[in-house]
């Protein structure tokens, strides 16, 4: 169907995801449980692993006894090793049954589905905010940012003055020249990574990883807020954790409060390079959208809704969005899940 037809179906002028989708009989490679009913599932899924992009999801059969599949966001995809990884919380019947699946089990998966996040070279300081089950897409985006070497234009304008290309990776937006742009471990020497992301993750149940003190100093953030996600640290990407539960090293408060305190320390030039990406519960996304509006930043949010087909056929998963022509109903599965925050909030 042409883009024009999509518009007709939705009375909108915004594209939808049109790439080929694969139905794969995947195999459970590993399935790990974490406190708070959280599970990390790795599936052998070569077609999806090859094509998946951050923000996309798979629509999987949790159990043959259930009439519908469940959409689950991708946290990682490894094309070389043909696996995809999903972090989920067992909240309903489907995910509770999924939690019983063992290595070697087969699970049917449709994917990869949905509009991915779009990063923009002129905004090389992505601020990634993930809350609860909204963390996985942020990890995926961070993973891909670190793997995207350089940009056509070479160095981002926001690189700390005087920093060598190889150091840019560790440079946190807002860091003073020479402050602490440490080079990430495992980074190939001389490799130019244009992006300087900061990841803020929030959770009200224990984080599904062992938080550790970050090796990166992020100016503008309270010095006591030091807990980070180890995987991101290993990738050379600074992260911070927030929770109301008083976990050690975590910011005591909302992800948006922490993000705001950091944004307030940036000057106009640095702010002009920030773009916000968020996934999490609806109230959190509303707060992130408001934050982005306050600082006049572009913001993309990834939404969730109950899904039946997951491929655009039933219009069961819609969200109401604002368009120049008035309100419209967009399908979260193929018109999203990633939307411009201004359309939704």
């Amino acid at each position, binding site marked *: *169907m*042409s883009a*024009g*037809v999509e*518009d*007709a*179906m*939705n*009375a909108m002028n915004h594209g939808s995801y*049109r*790439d*080929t*989708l*694969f*139905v794969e009989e995947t195999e459970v490679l590993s399935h790990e449980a974490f406190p708070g009913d959280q599970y990390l599932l790795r599936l052998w899924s070569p*077609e999806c692993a090859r094509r998946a992009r951050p923000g996309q999801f798979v629509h999987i*059969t949790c159990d043959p006894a*259930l*009439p*519908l*599949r469940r959409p689950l966001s991708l946290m990682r995809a490894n094309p070389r090793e043909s696996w995809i990884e999903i972090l989920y919380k067992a909240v309903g*019947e*489907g995910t509770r049954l999924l939690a019983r699946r063992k290595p070697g089990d087969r699970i*049917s998966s*449709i994917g990869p589905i949905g509009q991915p996040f779009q990063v923009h070279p002129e905004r090389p300081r992505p601020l990634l905010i993930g809350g609860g089950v909204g963390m996985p897409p942020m990890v995926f985006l961070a993973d891909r940012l670190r793997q995207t070497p350089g940009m056509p234009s070479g160095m981002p304008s926001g690189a700390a003055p005087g920093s060598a290309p190889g150091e840019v990776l560790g440079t946190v937006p807002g860091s003073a020249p020479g402050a602490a742009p440490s080079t990430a471990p495992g980074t190939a020497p001389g490799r130019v990574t244009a992006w300087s992301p900061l990841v803020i993750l929030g959770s009200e149940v224990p984080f599904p990883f062992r938080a550790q003190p970050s090796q990166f100093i992020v100016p503008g953030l309270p010095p006591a807020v030091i807990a980070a996600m180890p995987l991101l640290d290993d990738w050379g990407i600074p992260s911070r954790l927030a929770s109301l539960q008083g976990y050690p090293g975590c910011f005591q408060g909302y992800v948006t409060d922490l993000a705001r305190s950091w944004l307030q320390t940036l000057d106009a030039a640095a702010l002009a390079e920030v773009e916000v990406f968020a996934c999490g519960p609806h109230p959190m996304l509303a707060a992130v959208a408001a934050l982005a509006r306050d600082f006049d930043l572009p913001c993309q949010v990834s939404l969730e*809704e*109950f*899904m*039946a*087909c*997951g*491929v*655009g*056929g*039933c*219009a*069961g*998963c*819609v*969200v*109401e969005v604002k368009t120049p022509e008035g*309100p*419209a*109903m967009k399908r979260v599965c*193929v018109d999203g899940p990633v939307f411009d925050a201004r359309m939704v909030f």
Partner: protein
Amino acid sequence: MTVDSNLDPRLSVDFCGLNFATPLVLLSGCVGFGEEYTRIHGFSNRQAGAVCLKGTTLSPRLGNAPHRICETPGGMINAIGLQNPGVDRVIRDILPTLDFSETRFIANVSGSSIEEYYEVTRRFDDSPIDAIEINISCPNVKEGGVAFGNDVRMSAQVVAACRRATRKPLITKLSPNQTDIAANARACLEAGADAFAAINTLMGMAIDIEQRMPVIGNNQGGLSGPAIKPIALLKVHQIYQVCRDHGIPIIGQGGIASAVDALEFLIAGASAVGIGTALFYDPLILTQINQGILDYLDRHDLANVAQITGSLCLHGPSLPACGCESA
């Protein structure tokens, strides 16, 4: 236009003078406007004898507020609310993009007045669409839909109006939310229906006990999927009693999720069978059901699908045409 199918010719059925390459029909509301599933690797509209497009009204409709769907035991409830861009945009922007050599495309018409049903049908009459299905059984709109479909006189009036608007095959989609579906079928047949589709969804509700609110934004919705299959089978059998002697075909539907299910409907009297909710679980199910039907033909030494239609052998005296005494 003719459909060039690569399916076994024994699967093909005649439906109101249209040739369907297989009795399998993709159901309205489950496959958008015919193209959404085609980007799934391994899926092809050619595996279906016909594809019913999403319910279409005169003006564009935004549809209902979320949540629009929820899973229930053995099925799901939906209340989409007929989201569609309006008949003119369907004809102008969507039909030209469909490949009519793949399958037959059937429009699905809805309205909140008899005039609207007439007008939408009239506009589709002047389009390449192969057939027109009148949906007088949508449970998810405030006016029209099931409100018409549960009233025998109103149903017949809608059919008569649409009949005046088109010479294309006219399929009436009947509601199971009524006591005497056979009486309704008889009235619609007399009003000019060429075929029937049955059943549409059954009205139902799901409740979130924490919020003490219905899960569905529209409060209630239509139940589909395997949970409704036994009800659908009986209704198809009852409608078939009315249709049999008139050569009026039925698209049997409601919870079909396997070749066995499809065969049950054919045996009960359907000439074609619809797949909706099952596609959500298995987008590649058509291939499997087509193959299962072929295997059955082989096993029972039958030449074609038409030989299965209505082949039910009842125990003892046959059931009355409908569940009520008057029949």
